[in-house]
């Protein structure tokens, strides 16, 4: 059997990015990209807020830590996201995304052993309110 997985990186922060202030154009472009028709998310004006999934479009500097254990497996794929949505994003908000290794766990299935790594990204605004908490799972084997 394979060796137990190294969990020493769990809890490690590997990215912290503060983005330029959100603009109305950013929100409108995001909404238009997937055909959003709800006026509150797609019509310019004082009531404009970003669609709830807006913060998922943010990209930090690192998708995963550089020191992830090398024995997890040669292949990896996206194993899904769990998303908790917080306060709405409005034009002028300054968002910060902090990414950590939230968990590493193993399981066995029909096709053999797998290791899952959960990267958690917490997005907050300039008032330190939670905008979203995104758990991105990657499966390695």
């Amino acid at each position, binding site marked *: 059997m394979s060796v137990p997985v190294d969990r020493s990186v769990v809890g490690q922060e590997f990215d912290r990015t503060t983005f330029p202030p959100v603009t109305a154009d950013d929100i409108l472009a995001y909404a238009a990209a997937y055909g959003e028709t709800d006026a509150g998310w797609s019509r310019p004006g004082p009531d404009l807020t970003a669609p709830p999934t807006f913060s998922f479009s943010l990209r930090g500097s690192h998708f995963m830590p550089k020191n992830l254990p090398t024995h997890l497996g040669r292949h990896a794929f996206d194993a899904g996201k769990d998303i908790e949505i917080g306060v709405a994003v409005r034009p002028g908000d300054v968002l910060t995304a902090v990414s950590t290794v939230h968990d590493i766990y193993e399981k066995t299935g*029909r096709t053999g052993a797998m290791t899952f790594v959960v990267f958690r990204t917490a997005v907050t605004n300039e008032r330190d309110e939670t905008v979203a908490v995104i758990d991105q799972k990657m499966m390695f084997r």
Partner: protein
Amino acid sequence: MILDLHAHSDASEDSRAPLETYLKWLQRKRDLLPIDGIVLTEHRQWNPAADYRSLEDHYGILILRGAEVETEYGHILIYGVTDEMTRRFDFANVRLTAQEVVREVARMGGVAAPCHPGRPTIGLCEHYAAGKPPLEGVVAVEALNGGSRRGENERVQALIDTYGYGAFGGSDAHLVSLIGICATEFDDDVRSTEALVAALQGRRYRPVDFREQVRAARGAA
């Protein structure tokens, strides 16, 4: 009395089914799924603080708890989990030794029963076929698993015939609409974990399959 002996709520990382939604579903589908209770067998974990009595009272459905652990012989359901067991075994360890689990769980007053034995890699049949020695002390196996693919449940009968294992059923539900589709009918009243362990150690139960009538009802809708 009919119990679904194998179900995962959203406490398991690969399930999206809230416990209460299972209960609402069973309450609503009572004509199709005459399930008196379910046993939550979350993957690789045991939460000693979980208390579902208010949900039991509200929905009139018995809720018992076990666990599903992983060994070199495949996955094993543990019924009658105790603090002693969780001190003895790290349930999150996917490399548990099956013979130790079966022997020690029995010694500590529980039952460790291999689940989905016909499933590749994580089922007992494949490991026996590969020449591993048969596990000693197994009293029952999950002969009917609601998550099995074609042919996987069918492989289990030979195992039961050869080794004389008791046969039970469970849905292995990870989604709400799959709860209760396979279950176990007990001749005796099973109202507690202790009673479940005692019943499994006897042989007065059998798997029951509701998949066909669920399919038929969906087709008629």
